[in-house]
Every structure is written in structure tokens, then in C-alpha cells.
């Protein structure tokens, strides 16, 4: 019972507190209102002067959007808005949007000349003129192959920006007009990307919306200019640089250039460079793969070609010539012929050898190598390889295919030819 009484009392207190608080708040608000009222009463306004006649409720054009081709007008007290390009032809009633404004399509208005639309309301029939300029049609643009820039001409004086889009895209990008010829600009970098596969672009001078000026009149704005198509020509194909796996040369030409640093710096190539000059790092001991970029150098009329990257694998170590366990090649002779067995030779892993007679030196560019594609013993006659000759053996290199990468021929092992009988 006591608890119940306590609870009721507490609840009543809460109610009381709430009432006091809300009452004082209301009182405060009333006091505020009273103050305001008092303030109002104390400062009796002077009798208002003669009302000036209300300005005419002219229809108010507020925007010309040349991208979406709408002219937007505010009714300014009118219930209806009418428009026409020729009063004699009659007036067309504009459709009111949910936001109370009138959106007048201007896609039918010819852009070849300056046109004036007339607007009026139903309440105020005074005509308001909206002038739309002609589309600028003298813009020209051309891709300059030699330096990868875009020459833009014919733009009106004072033009600072232009827009471009891919022919298959509707997204416009705005650039400074100076960037079209500024080497290294972000725009030209984009163009460079397109020089690989080629592209078509459209250029235009950007539109400027017609908006109210400070004095309330509507500025004409500027239509986007006529679009000009610019074809970004593909760079010429990259030279097909191949390694002659027999001669260890590359089919370079003087018109080419090559780069070790991925295209940052370039050197002029020579005709048919030897690997030893072009990529010595791939040969011999401590050889490593080398990636070399090649391209046809730029001329006064054309830019450089696409780049071909040639990865030249490091040359494999020379084959082991027996008799040792695991040797690649063992040899023997019966006094009349010289026999060699390439134990590891297969169709896929070929070996080759060349004979250099005594007194001659091996000319890698002219040597004729004979391939060995099986472990079947091969013989070389004494006539072909007389005693004292040196037979060079190596793993045969492979040209790059879709399945197999390029492999250089391995380093060579020299075998001196002797016809002293040995056991096979």
C-alpha cells in the first residue's frame, strides 16, 4: 500500500513538473510574442506611401540549355506561357512542368542562323524576346601524325577551351585549347593511347548556357559549335624484330631505334645487329634475359611506330660433352668417321653442330649448323671434319611460337676432332 502511494505521489510530482516546465515555456513564448507585439506597438509604422504600380508580370526566361535543347521560362504570375518564332504563324502554348516552370523544346529551332523566339503570358501579353545565336561552323581540327598533336583552327578569337568525345561515346571532355598542341599534356597523353589501335574523335567548342545577366536580361549564351571529326591514325605497326637463332643476330634496320629502359630513351639501331652488340647480357656466363623495345623511328611526316618488345632469353649454358654422367654429347671415332651422340636430343629439344676446319675460325654469321633431333648417333666424315677440326655443339635455339617461347641457342662447347680410336 505504501509503495503504491509513493508511486502515485511520484507520478503526480512528475506531472506537476512537466506542467510547470511547459507552462513556463509557453509563457516564455507568449512573453516573446508580447515583446514583439509591444515592440510593434511602440514603433508605430509611418503611414505607408502610395503604392507604386506593380511592375508588369512579364514571362521570364531564365535558361537556355544548348546541350539538352530546352528554353526554361518562369511564368512570373501568368498561368500560361505562349511562344512563337513568327507572330503571324500564331502562338503555341507551352506545357507546364510539375515545378511550375515552362520547358520549351528548342530542337526544332534552326541553328544555322540567329533566331529570336517570342514569349508572352496570358496575364501579361507583353512580348519578351529570346535570341539564340547561330551555331559556329568554322571550327577545324586535324590530327598531326608527326608530333601527335591536334591542330585546331578557325575558333573565334579568345577561345580557351574545347571539348572532345570518342565517336562511339557521348561523354564530353573539356580541355584547354593550348593542351591540344602542348607536348606531354594529359590530353595528348590520352591521344597517344589511342594511337595504338586508332580512334575517331569529335571535337567542338563548348556550349555556354544562356542565363540571366546582372541586369536581369537573359544572355544569349553560345551554342556548341559544329562537331568536327578527327581521326587518330594508328601508329604504324611495330617492326617485327626477330632473332636469327642460328646467327645470333636481330633483323634490325637503321630506320629503327631500340630502348633498354622500356621506351624512356632510344638509340638508333644498325642493320642486322648482332646480339653481342645489341644484347650482350643474354650471352655467355651470367647471362640474363633482356627485354628490348624496338620501333621504327619517327620521320618528319610520321611519328614513330608502335613498339615491339622483344624479350631475349638468357643463353643457356653450353652442353656438357662427355664422357661424364649426364653429358649432353658424347663422341667417338673409328678412325674414319667421327661419331657424336646427342643423348638428350629430341624433336623438341634439338641440338646442332658445326664443323670448323683447322686453321679456320668460327664465323657465327656464316656458320652452317646441322640439327640433331634424336639421340641416334650422327657421324661426320673425315672429309667433312678432318683431324684438327673443331666441332662446335650447342642446343639449338627455338623461334617463338604460340606454344613455345624464343630460346637462344646455348653457348657452344667445342670438340676437337681426332681420329684416334676410342671406345664408344
Amino acid at each position: 500500500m505504501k509503495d503504491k502511494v509513493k508511486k502515485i505521489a511520484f507520478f503526480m510530482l512528475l506531472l506537476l513538473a512537466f506542467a510547470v516546465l511547459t507552462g513556463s515555456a509557453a509563457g516564455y513564448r507568449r512573453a516573446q510574442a508580447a515583446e514583439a507585439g509591444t515592440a510593434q506597438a511602440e514603433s508605430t509604422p509611418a503611414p505607408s506611401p502610395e503604392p507604386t504600380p506593380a511592375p508588369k508580370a512579364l514571362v521570364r526566361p531564365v535558361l537556355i540549355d544548348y546541350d539538352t535543347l530546352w528554353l526554361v521560362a518562369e511564368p512570373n504570375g501568368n498561368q500560361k506561357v505562349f511562344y512563337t518564332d513568327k507572330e503571324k504563324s500564331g502562338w503555341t502554348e507551352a506545357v507546364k512542368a510539375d515545378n511550375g516552370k515552362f520547358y520549351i523544346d528548342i530542337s526544332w529551332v534552326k541553328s544555322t542562323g540567329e533566331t529570336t523566339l517570342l514569349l508572352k503570358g496570358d496575364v501579361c501579353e507583353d512580348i519578351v524576346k529570346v535570341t539564340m545565336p547561330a551555331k559556329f561552323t568554322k571550327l577545324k581540327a586535324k590530327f598531326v601524325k608527326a608530333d601527335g598533336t591536334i591542330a585546331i583552327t578557325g575558333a573565334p578569337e579568345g577561345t580557351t577551351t574545347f571539348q572532345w568525345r570518342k565517336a562511339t561515346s557521348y561523354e564530353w571532355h573539356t580541355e584547354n585549347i593550348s593542351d591540344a598542341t602542348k607536348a606531354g599534356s594529359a590530353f595528348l597523353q590520352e591521344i597517344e593511347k589511342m594511337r595504338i589501335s586508332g580512334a575517331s574523335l569529335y571535337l567542338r567548342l563548348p556550349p555556354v548556357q544562356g542565363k540571366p545577366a546582372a541586369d536581369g536580361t537573359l544572355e544569349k549564351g553560345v551554342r556548341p559549335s559544329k562537331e568536327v571529326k578527327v581521326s587518330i591514325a594508328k601508329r604504324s605497326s611495330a617492326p617485327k624484330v626477330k632473332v636469327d637463332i642460328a646467327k645470333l643476330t636481330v633483323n634490325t634496320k637503321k630506320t629503327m631505334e631500340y630502348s633498354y629502359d622500356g621506351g624512356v630513351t632510344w638509340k638508333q639501331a644498325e642493320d642486322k645487329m648482332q646480339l653481342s652488340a645489341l644484347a650482350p647480357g643474354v650471352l655467355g656466363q651470367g647471362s640474363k634475359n633482356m627485354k628490348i623495345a624496338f620501333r621504327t623511328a619517327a620521320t618528319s611526316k610520321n611519328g614513330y611506330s608502335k613498339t615491339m618488345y622483344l624479350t631475349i632469353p638468357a643463353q643457356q649454358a653450353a652442353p656438357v660433352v662427355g664422357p661424364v654422367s649426364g653429358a649432353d654429347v658424347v663422341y667417338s671415332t673409328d678412325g674414319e668417321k667421327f661419331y657424336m651422340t646427342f643423348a638428350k636430343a629430341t624433336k623438341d629439344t634439338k641440338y646442332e653442330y658445326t664443323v670448323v676446319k683447322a686453321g679456320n675460325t668460327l664465323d657465327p654469321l656464316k656458320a652452317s649448323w646441322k640439327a640433331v633431333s634424336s639421340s641416334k648417333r650422327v657421324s661426320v666424315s673425315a672429309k667433312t671434319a678432318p683431324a684438327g677440326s673443331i666441332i662446335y655443339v650447342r642446343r639449338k635455339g627455338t623461334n617463338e611460337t604460340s606454344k613455345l617461347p624464343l630460346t637462344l641457342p646455348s653457348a657452344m662447347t667445342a670438340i676437337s676432332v681426332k681420329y684416334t680410336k676410342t671406345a664408344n
Partner: protein
Amino acid sequence: MKQKRCILVGVFLFLCVGMAALLPGRRADAASPSLSVVEIDYDKETVTVATHAGDTKLFYSDGKMKNWECAYGGFSAGQYVLDISWVSKSREYTLMLKGDKSETPVSVVLPKQQSNFKVKYDCLKEKLEFTNAGTGLIFWRKSDSTTWNAFGTAAALQKPTIDIFKRLYAKGATLCFRTGQVKGTASSPGLRPSKEVKLKIAKQASAPKVSVNTVKLTVSTTDKMEYQLNGTGEWKACTKDGLKLSELAAAAFSKNGSTGKDVTVSIRTAATEKKLASAVQHITVKAQETVPGNVGFSFKSCSSMIITIPEEKDADGNVTDKAASKNNPYEYTVVKEGETLKDDASWTAITSAELVLKEEKAPKGSTVYVRKKSIYSSNGIYRLCSLATSWQVPEYPEETKAVLADGETASAGLDEDGKVALVKTADSKPSGLVFRLVISKLFDTDIDKLTCGGTELEFTSEKTENVVLVTITSTEKYEAALKTRDKAYPIKITLKNGETLSNAVTLKVLGRSSVSKGAVFDVYRSTGSETEHSFVVIPGKMLDKAQDGSHLTANIVSISLLDQTVVHQAVTDSDGNWKVTIRSDNLQSFFQNEKMELDKEYPLTITMSSGETLKDSIKLRFSREAAITGAPIIFVKKVGSDLEESLGFEITCKKSGVYVSTVTWNGINIMGNCTVNSGKIFVELDYRQLNALTLTSGEKEVSYPVIVTLSDGGLIEEGLNLVLQQ
């Protein structure tokens, strides 16, 4: 028990995890590709590739992988955005990608662009219908715009777009549509936006031309049209019978004292599936106006009333009511006494600020109703006929009367019928031709003109209240055309309000004086001739009357010629006419009148006591019967120088049997011989008489004419001069 449960659950979980780990394609140790596609954006025409192996260069090729292109530049922040605008959309394209380190190519199959997307616009339902639209958003743009707008294909989602399309109806437009892209990802190549399709929204037809019958309150329509009330609600089909505005626009009419409201009826040619609804013709039926406040009724004359509908302005000069006119017509109808105005009453248009109705049309007791007429303007505003004001026509005013101005006078009196009878003498200035017009006070008018016999009479008038004093000032034109005199003819009095009085006043012009037969009399220069010339003057009538009431006739007051009185004798004959005689000897003094020229006719001016003047009937011609042949002749005689022969000259005479009586010079007879031969008279100046002529003392020369007197009194006073010299 609990423990057992836990163990079972644990085992179950373990098995699940284990199985998951062993499921193919979910090997924990499977390696992620080193290159992966982040995004394919078919709007931007780009493929964004990410490297997970630190590639610096990106290579790409087609599915055959024979030629690898090295993309310009390199990966940046592990990504490369590759342009794919060069990839043909007309077929699927396999794009192979690898890096300088990620040598295992990754393939991306770029889909073919869908080209079977179609769009149609149902103009009737105002709905877009798509074929092969897929499930995503549709995009549209104006053909000359590069800005795409997205919307969903469901009917509810189309509404905002359709609302936008409605803005294009008036001028038509060409739009392009396509389905939206689905961006490609690592796991899906996505979808290209479809091939664009064009949709032409043909310009809507002009609003149909409808005719409005303002009497029947109907609008002509066809069954291909539809209408809408007050710009809201559904459009309803019209029929060939037309629209009855009396029903549709009933709210515009005043009813039981409450004013109506404007009602707008919009009419258009209904849409079909392929054709948009036409533009709308709005007919705004304005709320019926109350009784016009600028209509006035009054009498115009004693037999006509006038309805006035002038322009009214307020105190500030603003027009509150326009005057009735062609553009602002009113109308009236007259309801006979005892009848009421019916709905089908026939109304007549009033197109000017005043309309006169004759008594026959609006008799006393009838009620004239006037209201603003229904009009339909070319701008679609229909003004209903207003409520009507009315006037019950009271008694028409008394007829205008003509009365004597100053009581009976010689010129103005009343005839036996009580009419004002005006009388004047012929060809005299009107005098006393005065009368008054008494006009009803119920209307205001004044005299406009007086005509008699079709000829206007000049007059002056002076109006005081409703009485006009009319004074005829000239009857010259009338009298010039008048054929019969001494007869009273009615004067037609026309008032400015159009009223005429044709039988209230008469005018009689009395007979005029005249010469019975005109003549030209020759008067010769003579001495003592008593030739007489006679003529008859028929006297005109005078205003004065004899005792029997007949008008007295005029006397001859004077006869003059060249401002000189002509002596005459006048005697009345049996007909009461004046026989006038003039003698030559009384006319000789005219030969001295400087204004007189010989052989020229001069009319006599006969002034009658009636004030008339007779001229041009009787003329006199002064001439000489004889003259000296070869005149002028001058003879010179020196005193002392004697002539031995007489000087001779010849006289030509008009008369025969005439001879020379005397020849004198300065009163001195100097006549010599005189012979007559073939009408010519030869006269000699006697030389002896000439030799006897002398000069007075101190005179050196004198010259006088030789005066010849003829036997019939004729005189020759000029033509021959004799000069006497010292």
C-alpha cells in the same frame, strides 16, 4: 546428454568446413590471375585493368594472340584504363590482356551490340512500347543533343518521360533511344548499350476549326474530336451533333441572382495510335455579365424612341463600359404589351451607340429589352449574352406643332385648315416669313432644314427651351424653279431627330411683275424728235390686300437707265396692265451720259412698288442716224488767207429723204450747197462764210466741230472740225 549434443554439433561443423575446403574451384591454394578486369564501361568505351603482379606494361591482342599491342603508358596505381572505342560492336570480340610480368593472358569477351531493340510510341495511350528492351533502364535523347536521359520501361516509370515528351508535341521532334549498358566486371562482360533507334514524334496537327453558333449556343464538332472541361479531367468524345454549351457551360450562366463562372471547353482532334491528338482549341465561355449599366432609353421624336449605349467612364477616366459597336454588339427585342419575354424570343443586333425604333415597332405599352449580344471572338473567347435591361414604353410625346410667331401679319397667317400660311411677293427679299415650332419636352431636337417643292429654303432659327423660332431668309433658289405662283405649297420641315412636318406650314409666292414683250428701241440723236417707244408691264401682286381679300397689284415706281431716270408715261389698260411710253426727246440727254456708248443696248430698270425690279426686257440703243464720211476730218483755215472754193464733205445717213438743214461752226452758219445722191449727202462749207471767220483778239487758234442739223432733227456733232488759225 548435453555433452553428447555438443560433440555431435562439433563434428558436424568440422565436416562442413572440411568439405568446403575440398570443393573444386574453391581450393585455398588456387592462384588469382595476375591481371584482372576491374570494369568495362561501354559508355566511356574503356576497360579498366588491374595488375596484381606489379606489371608496368599492358599488352593486348585479339583472341588469336598473334599480334600483341603494347598499350601506351603503363599501369598507374596498379590500374590501366584501356580505350576500346576501336573494337567493332557488330560482333563479339575477344580481348586478350597480359602484362610485362603477367604473361598468362586473360581474356575478356566484349559482347556484340544488340541491334534488335525497337521502340514505338502509342499516341493514343501516350505510352512507349519496347521490343527487346531487357530489364534495365532505357535512355533517350533529342537527336541533336548528346545528353541521354534515363527512365524505366514500366508504365508507372514512364510517366515523367511522357510528360516531357508532351512538350515536344507542338513542334515535333526526333528522338534516339537505346538500352543502357551493363558495366562489365571481372566475372561478367556486361552488356553494351543497344544500337540506337530513332523515333519521330510528328508535330501535332493544328487545333481543329470549329464554328460556334452564338444563338443556339452550340459548337460544331465531328466524331473524331474530343473535349475537356476547364483543363482537367478526362477527354470525352464529341459527336457529329456538336457540343451544347448551354449544358456544358451551364456554370457560366447567372442563376437566381448568383453570378456564373468562366468555363473553358477545350476541343481537339483525338489521338490515334499513330497520330498525336491535335493542338487544342480553347473556348472560354465567360461568366454571364449582369445587366449592362450603359443602356439608356428615351424618345427621339413624337413617333420614335431611341436606345443609347454610349461609352461610360469612371471618375478616373477609365472606361467601365464600351459603347455598342460592331465589335461590341448589343441586341434588343420588343415584347408586346401584356406578353412576357420568352427564351426563344428573336433578338435584333445593335452595332452602334444609338438605335432608333419607330413607334410601330415599339408602341406604347410594349417593353423593350436590351442586353449585350453573345459574341465569339477568334481568340476563343465566348461572351455570353448578358442579363437584359428593359423599358416599358410610355405614352409617345405630342406631335411637333407649327404656330404663328407674332400673330397674323401680311406675310404670315393661318389658312382655313389652321396651317401657318406664309406669303411673299415675287423676287423680293423675304420679310416676315416667320413661324414657331413647338416641340415636345420629352426629347431634345432642333430644326434641320426647310424645303419647298424639293428646293431648300435658307433660314435662321433660334431655340428657347422647346420652342424654335424659324425665319426664312431666302427663297431665291425656290423662286427660280417655281413654275406656278399665287399658289400655297407645303413647306417640309425636317427636324434633326429625323422627324418631318410636311403639312404644317405653306408658302405662297405671289405673281411677279413682267414685261409682256421685250424689245430693243433705237434712239437717235436728234433735236426735237418726238419718236415714241411703248411697251406693256404686267404688274405683280402685293402683300397688301383689297377689301375683297385679293392682293393688290404693283405700280411702276421708276424706270432708269445707266443710273439716270427715264421719263415715261404709264397708263393702265383694260387688263390692269401698265402701258408705258417713252419719247425720244426725253432720251436725248443720254447722249451726254459718259457711260453711254453708241450702238450698244442698255436695259431699262423698271422698279415696281412690289419691290420687284424688271430688267433686261426693254433695251435702248443709242445711235446716230448720220455720220460724216471719213471722219475725223480737220479743216484748217488761216485768217486772212481767203479760200476761193467751198470745202466739201460727205454725210452718210441711215434714213432716206433726209437733207441738211443747217451747218454751223461755233454758232455761225457756214453752210454752202448741199446735194443728195444715192443716200449720200454732199455738203459744202461756203467759202465766203469761211473767209469771214475771224479770231478774237489775242486768239491765235480756235477749233470747233462743225454741227450739221438734218431735216428730221437728226444732229451730227462730231466728225468734222474746223480750225481757225492766225
